[in-house]
């Protein structure tokens, strides 16, 4: 379980998160929605201490992330896969190099040849051919880069996968492929996921629950149909602006 408890974060004088409380239950996929620039990615980065809160706590399986020791945080990071917004693949390494880094331990104990079948299996899981292993990230399309990013995130067989804007910058077809992949991985690997997005369609497609982050706090967090039925004017405004009219319904 991942819990955010009263998380505050400012950059300079500007507060971004103002006491975020959010619990992600075991096995669920939580879609974290919100307008651009409201701190969704900032919140996600707190889960593996890429950022530390000014106040508040984040618990992953009961481990307090801000106060965790170096060894604890490394162990947590092995249990949490993180998919970055632009994939953040290591561009000086091939796809195999990227996956091998995530598969091997820090001391590089395992021979590279033994990692190749596992890397190919990871690619198969994200519907990519093993020939991609020899390509550099610069030779991949946007959708392929995202899928390799997902493959790298699941390399350590994590319990949690955090997706930071996984469909941003993709055309609708590729966005659908990534959404389907998120659902498939959650089902097949049994992972708990947080999907940060500002794409309402994507959120409703992948999320068991949907949370709306506005003005630094969680405004609503419920099942998709409850969010749609919410009478909160802020939630309504966000939904209507996205779908165009109050009567429109999001895709299932």
């Amino acid at each position: 379980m991942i819990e955010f408890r009263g998380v505050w974060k400012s950059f300079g004088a500007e507060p971004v998160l103002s006491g975020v409380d959010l619990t992600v239950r075991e096995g669920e996929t939580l879609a974290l929605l919100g307008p651009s620039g409201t701190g969704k990615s900032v919140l996600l980065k707190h889960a593996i201490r890429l950022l530390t809160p000014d106040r508040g706590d984040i618990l992953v399986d009961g481990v307090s992330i801000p106060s965790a020791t170096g060894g604890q945080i490394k162990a947590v990071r092995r249990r949490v896969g993180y998919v970055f917004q632009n994939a953040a693949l290591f561009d000086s390494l091939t796809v195999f190099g990227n996956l091998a880094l995530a598969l091997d331990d820090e001391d590089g104990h395992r021979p590279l040849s033994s990692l190749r079948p596992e890397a190919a299996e990871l690619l198969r899981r994200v519907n990519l051919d093993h020939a991609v292993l020899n390509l550099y990230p610069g030779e991949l399309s946007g959708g392929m880069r995202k899928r390799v990013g997902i493959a790298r995130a699941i390399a350590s067989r994590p319990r949690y996968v955090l997706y930071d804007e996984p469909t941003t910058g993709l055309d609708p077809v590729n966005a659908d492929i990534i959404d389907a992949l998120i659902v498939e991985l959650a089902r097949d690997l049994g992972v708990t996921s947080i999907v940060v997005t500002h794409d309402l369609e994507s959120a409703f497609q992948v999320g068991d629950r949907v949370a709306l982050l506005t003005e630094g706090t969680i405004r609503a967090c419920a099942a998709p149909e409850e969010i749609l039925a919410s009478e909160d004017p802020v939630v309504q405004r966000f939904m209507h602006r996205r779908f165009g009219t109050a009567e429109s319904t999001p895709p299932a």
Partner: protein
Amino acid sequence: MASRSPAGEPRRVLRAPDVIGAARGELDRVGRGALLAAAIVATLPKPRKYMHASLAQAYHMGIRSLPLVLFMAAVGGALASQQTGAQFTGGLPVWVTGSVVAAGVLTELGPVLTALVLIGRVGASIAAELGTMKVTEQIDALYSIGRDPITFLVVPRVVGGMMVVPPLVIVANAMGMLAGLIVGMIAIDGLTATEFIFGARFYFRPWVLFFSVIKGAIFGITITFLACFMGLEGRGGAEGVGRTTTSAVVATTVAIMVLDVLLVPLLKVA
């Protein structure tokens, strides 16, 4: 009423909170630099984690820099020889040229010109590479897969720099001396190879060469450390990476020059 610049825009007034804020920011930066240095030192007793990558880094740094190091050293040695000839001919015996070139090349030109080449060829490249990795979240990605960027990226570069600069300095010294000899024989009336070598040996003490090599190692550590540190501090997209790279080159050049002055007393130890 707010004063205005000639362009008509309000002139920025420097206020105490701004100054304190900027000073605090710089102190934070020094603190982060100290923490990075401490983390590097803490990793050093575990060579298995970085030695292979360090050797690869040293090889690439050496190969990339060698032609320019040789060229700069040759120019430095040639200039030292020519200037000595022009200044001293007639007043002092010509073999003094050998002494002056040896002193100039071994104590200053060899290590400093090598360092300046490395700042341009290696330091800028490291700062740009790590800066790009920072702004494209590749550094965060390393953390996310349980890898320590300091062990993985910084230590191999710093250790590689420490390993490769001393041999480069030795090669630069040899090239500088050779160029000094050849140009001296061409440009200075009456100077023979025997006299030049006599002059060089007259000045030479083993400590001078050792001093040159120590300087090289210190410069190697300084260049790679500052380049890594400033790269990791990078922010703000492509423009930010450009700024980071420029700042790294300027800061490293200043640091090398200041260190060069501070290290002079070391020459007098022996």
